[in-house]
């Protein structure tokens, strides 16, 4: 995976994870163009499109678009599953997740993503294990344990 973007129906970015080195300017340009392209898609169109030299896989969950850019050899359908798995993880963690959760707790959304994907690839295929790891890491962050690891 080259990058993942989460954005609202108004095109506001809620999360951006980049796995390729690009300048801030390039990232902004890509984001702007891709968001526009995806938002222009009609509801009946399929979740996959070709954009520049990448394959884009996207799915809308309530008011948020989850959008991944993958390479030629990557499997689009399993990417849909990856998106779905991430949504499930967020849902389990926040309890019926909604866009506001992701806005006000964006760092947590990143931490969860980083426990599921690493370097653009899935690192853990068991939902249970990802959630357990997040739980443990959160505990570590509690003020009590925070002094001098």
């Amino acid at each position, binding site marked *: 995976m080259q990058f993942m973007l989460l954005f609202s129906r108004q095109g506001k*970015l*809620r*999360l*951006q994870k*980049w*796995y390729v*080195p*690009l*300048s801030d300017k390039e990232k*902004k340009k890509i984001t702007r163009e891709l968001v526009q392209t995806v938002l222009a898609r*009609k509801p*009946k*169109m*399929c*979740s*996959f*499109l*070709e954009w520049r030299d990448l394959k884009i896989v996207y799915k809308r969950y309530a008011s948020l678009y989850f959008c991944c850019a993958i390479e030629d*050899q990557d*499997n*689009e*359908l*399993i990417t*849909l*599953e*990856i998106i*779905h*798995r991430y949504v499930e993880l967020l849902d389990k963690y926040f309890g019926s997740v909604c866009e506001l959760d992701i*806005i*006000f707790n*964006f*760092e947590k959304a*990143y*931490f969860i993503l*980083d*426990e599921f994907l*690493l*370097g653009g*690839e*899935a*690192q*853990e*295929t*068991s939902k*249970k*294990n990802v959630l357990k*790891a997040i739980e*443990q*890491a959160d505990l*570590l*962050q509690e003020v009590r*344990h*925070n*002094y*001098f*690891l």
Partner: protein
Amino acid sequence: MSPSVRLQEMIRVIRSARTQCEERGVIQRECAAIRAQFRQADNVGRSHNLAKLLYVHMLGYPAHFGQMECVRLIASPRYSEKRVGYLGAMMLLDEKQDASLLITNSIKNDLSHSNQYVQSLALCTLACMGSAEMCRDLAPEIDRLLRTSNSYIKKKAALCAVHIVRKVPELGELFTTAAHSLLSEKNHGVLHGAVVLITELCEQNPESLAQFRKVVPELVHIMKGLVMSGYSPEHNVAGISDPFLQVRILRLLRILGRNNDTASDAMNDLLAQVATNTDSSKTAGSAVLYETVLTIMDIKFHVTHYFFPLVLSFIFGFNSCVVLFIRRSYISMMSLQKIVQTDHNAVQRHRGTIVDCLKDPDASVKRRALELSLALVSAVNIRSMMKELLLFLSSCPPELRAQAASGIFSAAERYAPSQRWHIDTILHVLTTAGADVRDETVPNLIQLITTANELHSYTVHKLYRALVADISQQSLVQVACWCVGEYGDLLLRAECDDTEPVQVTEDDVLDALETVLQSHMSSPATRGFALTATMKLSTRITHNVDRIRSIVSIYGSCIDLELQQRAVEYNALFKKYDHMRAAVLERMPVIDKTSPGHSKGEMTAGPVQERDQTQKQPAVETVSQESTNQVRV
């Protein structure tokens, strides 16, 4: 107020700003406060200040002044600070920044930290944004971690190694042994990482690829376990046991089986098993089957061939929205194109579905459906297919018109059931998409018309009607002018078996040609056709020769050089060489497709050689020498 509430409070304040200007004001204030906080040496809310900055950054505002703070936080002994520091590094730093080098040492230390969650932060960051230099520096550490007993760390180290190999391919050698031994792990996360790593090693280095072929049996064994095992709650997704791992294994098998008989044979049974045992009613199963089809189509042919029926039933077997994608995907089309070459009939059965895809709103689906439809045209289905293709042409996206027109011509040429059908088809294309056809269409059509002797009257009637209706499509107008000039007598005689004859006078016909000559829509080439046609009519009509004479003489002073030259020559034909005029403008013989041509795509009366008065042969009109067949699809 605890620091994290302050972050959420800030977010709330920013969101409540009613205008962009107001938002900017709030953010400027916050950033100033954050900057001030950064400058303070010790500060309880350090991580929260950085988090605030990261939020602001996501809104699109500059945050580079936070880079050094990331470096500082990463070095902190507190986990909460490290966590945000590393997050900040991944968001604000990239390998192009100098600051990223400063965290190399922290990463190195944290990779060997006693707490696995700290190690995890370092591994994640390295895999996300590690530069080539950092990778070289830390590769031995990663190799060491690949051999630890901690699965949590091992799986992350494997993916970190993948990143390192992508950045610095020569380091691949370092990880080869460890990668291999990881395959005997039971932990799915580690297995997945191992498969991804081995895939990367094989892709980067053909020698590694050769070496890793020996793990095919192991991979087959793991896959079998996944496919045939009972329900495993931990890894189950819609009835499939760990589809993520299955897909990666299948992809690796594809790479190992390509161009290799032994490897391909070894996976034969497995592929059949996966295909028959995987329920594709949900995305997870479809993903696995999709990867299976990709593998089947890519490995040695003698295995692939056996699977054709399976591939076809997979592509056309289902109706779920997700599988529709598979049907239309590039790979499906590629597979179908391969299959069509060896087993035409098998794909023909599904022609209806493919033709339906011509109506899909998605332009890339349309393109593939067009390619495949053209590949499926045969003598048997030419009439019905052409109906669909012409329908497609009238509403297809502009970028596909040239390809569609070209493909239609090619198909019409190969399978036309009759000459009249052929001519009608070409005329239909010219009317619908005349601007998108290739240059040689005009001479090719003219050549075709000359060969269809019994249809001259029919053709000139049709073309005359088209000319009177619309003179904007240049190729159509050119052919029409040529026809009217050549067969105008048939038009005037108003006899036609195949279509309603028109009642036209000589003046009507000359009006039509003059309209073309004078219209600003006509290209210079088109006007050339019209002028020559007008001239030709001088030997086919009886009453209005004077009118033709005056038209021709007017153009003798035309500003367009080509027209002027012709007009002057035609004038000469009227004046000095009137005795030759009838012979020169005689009905053309049937043009041989292979006759030598000079000009590109233009049919002109060859200029009469003024000095060669003994020449009695009609000037041979030159035909384009370009491809006698239209472009192959």
